[in-house]
């Protein structure tokens, strides 16, 4: 078998395997798709009454908020490998580090894209959200934010000492990131101190990125897109380092 074909085949095997693992335990995915849809339908009248861009806020706010909650999907997909001791089992196979990491993260990435796409789709079909003339920008924005979430979730899973740790960090992080980022209340309506520190939240940049994409404003996407990518790269590098070397034998799991 050629030196190119074999790694591709192995990566494909791993992607299929990890996708199968996720789909056999779909409760988190269902939950994080259903909850933002319910929330945006309930909140839309309020946002439309209060804001000129009420529909956009009603869709993108819950979408960003629950995409951060979905960090736990990524985290859990890695955490279970620690609990089941299967990651080391994969590490002693012929599959290289890159193949293992792609096989593990690509399915999680696809699930994150699926979640955001469904929420946006429902926003368009039911709430009347207008899509931009250039849908490629929106796809790009979702992909960048999905990458950022993937890297954040992976990094969290490699340092969390238990499933409880991961759950707490995911939940508190999701509330903090989405609240500070303007997913619940637009940043312009938040108190002054909150507006001042909003940019430390990845959710702030995600909201800016996705709302710019919905407006079809590619230039406005550059800065938030770069910030999201930088956050993703930083956490992704850390997660890659940890995943490639395993967790050792001194951990709780």
């Amino acid at each position, binding site marked *: *078998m050629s030196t190119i074909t074999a790694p591709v085949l*192995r990566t494909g095997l791993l992607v299929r395997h990890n996708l*199968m693992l996720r789909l*056999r335990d779909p409760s988190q995915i269902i939950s994080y798709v259903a909850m933002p849809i319910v929330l945006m339908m309930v909140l839309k009248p309020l946002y439309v009454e209060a804001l000129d861009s009420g529909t956009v806020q009603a869709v993108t706010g819950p979408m960003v908020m629950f995409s951060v909650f979905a960090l736990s999907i990524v985290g859990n997909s890695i955490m279970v490998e620690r609990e089941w*001791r299967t990651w080391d*089992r994969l*590490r002693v196979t*012929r599959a290289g580090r890159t193949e293992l990491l792609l096989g593990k993260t690509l399915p999680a990435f696809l699930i994150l894209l699926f979640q955001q796409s469904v929420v946006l789709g429902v926003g368009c079909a039911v709430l009347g959200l207008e899509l931009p003339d250039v849908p490629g920008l929106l796809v790009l924005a979702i992909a960048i934010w999905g990458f950022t979430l993937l890297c954040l979730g992976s990094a969290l899973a490699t340092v969390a000492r238990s499933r409880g740790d991961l759950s707490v960090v995911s939940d508190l992080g999701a509330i903090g990131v989405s609240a500070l980022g303007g997913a619940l209340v637009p940043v312009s309506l938040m108190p002054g101190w909150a507006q001042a520190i909003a940019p430390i939240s990845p959710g702030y940049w995600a909201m800016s990125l996705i709302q710019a994409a919905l407006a079809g404003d590619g230039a406005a996407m550059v800065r938030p897109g770069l910030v999201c990518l930088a956050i993703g790269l930083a956490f992704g590098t850390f997660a890659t380092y940890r995943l490639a070397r395993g967790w*050792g034998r*001194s951990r709780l799991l």
Partner: protein
Amino acid sequence: MSSNRPTLAREPATRTPPAVHPAPVPAEADGARADALLEVSGLTKRYGEVQALGGFDLTVRPGEIVGLVGHNGAGKTTFVDVVSGLIRPDEGTVLIAGRPPVPHRHLIGVSPQHIALYPSVTVREHLKLFGGLAGLRRRALRSAVEELAEDLRLTAFLDRPAGLLSGGQQRRTQAGVALIHRPRLLLLDEPTAGADPETRQALLETVRGRAAEGAAVVYTTHYLTELTELEATLAVAKAGRVVARGTAAELLADLSGEVVLEFADGEEIRRSTTDPTGTLMRLLAETTHTVTSVDVRKPDLDDLYRSLAMLGEVPAAGPPEGEAP
């Protein structure tokens, strides 16, 4: 079979198993190393204050089964982790077929000490996944799965998720994952721990078969009877290094048995000896008292295991052999 000689030394003993002198493992002849599939030398590994490996040497040839024995904490699992490339040693070298292990993982099959299976994934899917990762495709993969399932008595459970298997079935699946691609080097870390007799039998037969086909096997266990069934060479690990090596029969031959004579006046004498019959005859010839009972106890595998645990420690002083009252 190894050309190593056992390194246990004679030592007097009381009722407790006989102690043995710590002794260095003899170096392999150069010719013996030349065809080694696994060659490990001078491995050291430290976890903080704990010295897990302290100069671990081991050579295994194709077709050879080496039973790695030793108490918990002796360094067996760390050794397996290093050889399989999971952790890096602080010092020392590992060569598999003359090359470093990491780029040649296809040569290795590892069954870790703890169950490491995906609960929602069936036995067949496990075997297909790991067989596929090892390079098996389509018909070759299907036939490998069927054949191995039959060998390990898993055919009836092929489509059952691992989480619904019994402990023994999980053990066999775990071993199957290591065996599916017919590796040239098998690292089996306590593969029968907690297993039922059926599982043990299936695993031993399969391992013996793979060794007969030329695979080199490192088999860690606390059950010496399994190693005698496998006709394995024993390598005794203690404090992170191999302190003795030989077949069970060779090691037993160097262990002391015990001769006990009871006399009519209620006195008794006990002598530990590697020649129970000769010692008994000498004691009987020398004594002037009336002997009421004679007990000659030869060392068994339990004695061997306990004596192995004492390797490397200063043996307790025993009474001189052979002098009757």
